[in-house]
């Protein structure tokens, strides 16, 4: 008997507690920067596409919902010819972000992507690519990797000596 009264009392007390429920969508939830929501493709500090089409995100994806095709511009810089994420399959696990060697693919705190038509959940590159560096500022993969691209020749990356003169006899 006592326990029933106690329970009722406790329940009644909750009426005066601060509400956990928020009035979504009028009121927005507070999400943190590392919250794993919608996937975007970011750009490097020079506003070049960060994605180099290495296929690691696709390989890491446990539901195989990422598909892309790498291609190259005339200077040798790689980028995805198409990049497609099927969000109707995505489980927002963030493995793709973890696998990405260039910080290109990032999960951002946005989850408002519901659709009435499932086909609309297939995002192409134009839907994914944003004009921002996202969460990771200042990183430019091509400044580190030894590939020559337009505007960066051999030996011009970070921690690189100028190219060897093969015909030199100097020891």
């Amino acid at each position, binding site marked *: 008997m006592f326990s029933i009264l106690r329970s009722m009392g406790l329940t009644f007390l909750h009426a005066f507690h601060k509400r956990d429920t928020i009035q979504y969508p009028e009121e927005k939830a507070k999400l943190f920067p590392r919250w794993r929501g919608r996937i975007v493709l970011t750009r490097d500090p020079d506003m070049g596409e960060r994605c*180099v*089409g*290495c*296929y*690691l995100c*696709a*390989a890491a*994806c446990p*539901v*195989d*919902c*990422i*598909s*892309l*095709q*790498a*291609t*190259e511009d005339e200077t040798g810089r*790689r980028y995805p010819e198409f990049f*497609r*994420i*099927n969000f*109707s*399959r995505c489980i927002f696990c963030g493995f793709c972000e973890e696998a990405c*060697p*260039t910080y290109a693919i990032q999960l951002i705190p946005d989850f408002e992507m519901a659709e009435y038509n*499932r*086909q609309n*959940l*297939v995002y*192409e590159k134009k839907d994914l690519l944003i004009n921002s560096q996202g969460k990771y500022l200042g990183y430019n*993969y091509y400044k*580190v*990797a*030894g*590939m*020559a691209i337009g505007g960066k020749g*051999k*030996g011009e*990356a970070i*921690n*690189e*000596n*100028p*190219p*060897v003169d*093969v*015909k*030199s*006899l100097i*020891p």
Partner: protein
Amino acid sequence: MATIYIDNVPYEVKPGKNLLEACLTLGINLPYFCWHPAMGSVGACRQCAVKVFKDEADTKGRLIMSCMEPVRDNIRLSVDEPEAKEFREHVIEWLMTNHPHDCAVCDEGGACHLQDMTVMSGHNYRRYEYKKRTYQNQYLGPFLNHEMNRCIQCYRCVRFYKDYAGGHDLDVFAAHNHVYFGRHENGVLENEFSGNLAEVCPTGVFTDKTLKQHYTRKWDLTMAPSVCQHCSLGCNISAGERYGSLRQITSRYNGEVNGYFICDRGRFGYEFVNSPARIRKALVRTHLPEAVTKEVALQEIWGELRQARLIGIGSPRASLESNFALKALVGENNFHLGVDENDQDLVDLSLKILRKGPARNFSLREVETADAVFILGEDLTNTAPMLALAVRQSVRQQPLAQVAQASIPFWQDAAARELVQDKKGPLFIASITATKLDEIATATAHASPDAIARLGFAVANLISENSPVVTHLSEAEETMAQQIADALKTAKKPLIISGCASGSEAVLKAAANIAGALCEQVKTAGIVLTVPECNSLGLAMLGGHRLESAFEAIQNGYADSVIILENNLYRCANKTAVDSFLGHAKEVLVLDHLHHATTEKARIVLPAGTFAEADGTLVNNEGRAQRFYQVYPTPEDLQESWRWLINIGTSLRHPVLSNWKNLDDINQALAEADNQFKGILAAAPPAEFRIAGQKIPRESHRFSGRTAMNAHHAVSEPKPPEDPDTPLTFTMEGYRGEPPSSIIPFFWSPGWNSIQSVNKYQEEIGGHLHHGDPGIRLIEPVQTNLTHYFSEVPEDFAPLQNHLFMVPLYHIFGSEEQSILAPGIAQRAPEPYVAICEADAHALQLKEGNNLDFSLEHQIIRLPVKINNDITKGTAGLPKGLPGVPYAELPAWAIILKQETTWKHQPQIIS
């Protein structure tokens, strides 16, 4: 067998090998870079270090390079010893100090030996904080990409290119830590086997440039075991597809055929599959629009062919099944082989020689171990490239005896080559013009086909008295014949190579006589005959009437309609004859995968699958039946030729074809119909084959994107495509262990993502695959003591006034019909020309590049002259199959037209 102790566990291993090979054979993971099973050890990379102990009591041991240490009985070694492990980790750390860290944009990534070995050695954190060495790259032609920063200086590339493949234009430059592997200047890599560098290089320095145009990681490819279609050798390949287009060809190890390598035509010729010239829809010319669905096409065919008197024309580049299905559909009496008259005679003769002759038809592996070789009338580098590579290894056999005498194991590559120096075993070449193999030959003769045959007959006569005598030989020919006969007689495993390329029956007969004569004395003598196309021998075994008789049948009204199977008739018969044939036929139905002159004339064209979209069996020049598998599912309209023929047969209510449903049914019927094809059922497992109830997947377990790759068309995923013809699936589901050797889609093993994982599939390193190599030999020599000799010795060649004797010349890049449609191959193909010797050019008052007008088989041809002094006076070389060079049955006499002749006809272009 020797007993070795690895980490105190005794193992039985084969003596004579090195410890690295022994460890890998036993399945122990030991990292390595510079060692390659085909090229031996040099101990350059220091990666395969292990500890060796004196005896059981020895606990200290010493570090040795396992690739440099022979297997000794009771040797005790440790792979897992901490100091050895640490040493290997340090070595790879050093190798990585200059690594550019560009795996994400490196084509090798995911199939990279350096990645695998780094993971295997345990190195995972970069401590070196100084600057990296960098290099400039070179342009190496349309096939290979160069990214020198990734180099780890293992020297495999130059060892393969120079030592193994005999190339001259790739070398190592500079010194100390500036060592550079490349050409002396930018330019196309000349060697015909350069593509193998992409596989030989353990990193991404040399990568496949054609793959780069549509780059896909190895794990994303849908792969199937296939057989190369670009010459008669039948090298095994793995073909990979992504997003509906063929992406890459890699060599598929076969211990009996191609081993680790393939030629550039085989590796880079695949792009015809993605060509815009592909036929992708059934076409009915009387319809508007022409492209129709499968049902409409079959309806149309039923309407037209129901009453027709049909003949069928087969093809040497179509599978055995397709040819047999056509033969069954039209009936044995109406089946014609779609090959030119001369080729048919030559292939029939080759088949007869292989069947009735006493000499064994060598596989490529056996060619490598032959110790004296005589090549008659073949330019192997251009007609059967991998055979040329095998011959290059065979000339090492005799000098290696000296190496064995000095107690140096063969795999001690640097020591063996140092001892051998430039010594070469006997190799004799009698060819129409200079060949690339001439540089390693003991003696060469460049002569007309008849003179080559006479030399051959003379050699046969010198070996055995029973062979016919050749009279009126010049002194030079006599000495050479004597030299060749002596070398062949003293050899332990002599080999005669000839084939259809010279276009001369006499040459083949001479080769058969030598082989026969040798077999009277040396039972191990062998013979290799090349044939024109990938399934020429299979088609000849199947048998059929001549193409000429097909023409006559239509013209004389014995038949009114024709089905042409995967064949461009303009490449195997005279233009006027084909025009009149196709004009007279009421219905012309062509099944092919590419548009060409014949499909233009056809009323109904059906889209046939290429090797990548079809299953089938090919018989190579050795008589080995090998199965190739469909790589990727195709839209319903595009299907195997044999399936089209079954569809047609079913709609016509054909008593036999109506009962066939899949590939196995055809093979069963073929094996029952013809005794010589009994073996093909054993060439590959049937479609019902399962391991643990499962099929074999064509895709790796890491295959990505399957819920997204077609999502832009429809987000709901369709049912996975089924494969009723083979024990393979088009998906990643299925049995993950090792499949039987003939259905290995790709080589992979945990920790071994690169092609080097083939180690895990071999009985012993560099030997046969587990459970035997793929393919079944359908032809074995007869054991007889009575050799039959051909007696028709030809007269020597005599020039004719105002005439040139046109002989065929071949080009690895250009002569083959399909590969020429690959842009890279087309770039390497020569311009059309006619080759004459300087004396003739002088007599005709022509200079290099001037046009020569001649009439050949009633067609007037104008081609620029190329001076070639190896061509016999009075003969001229006409490049066979090259675009821009019209078809003519060669060899044949051409009449030289005077320069003043009014030019009436434009030179005809064969597409």
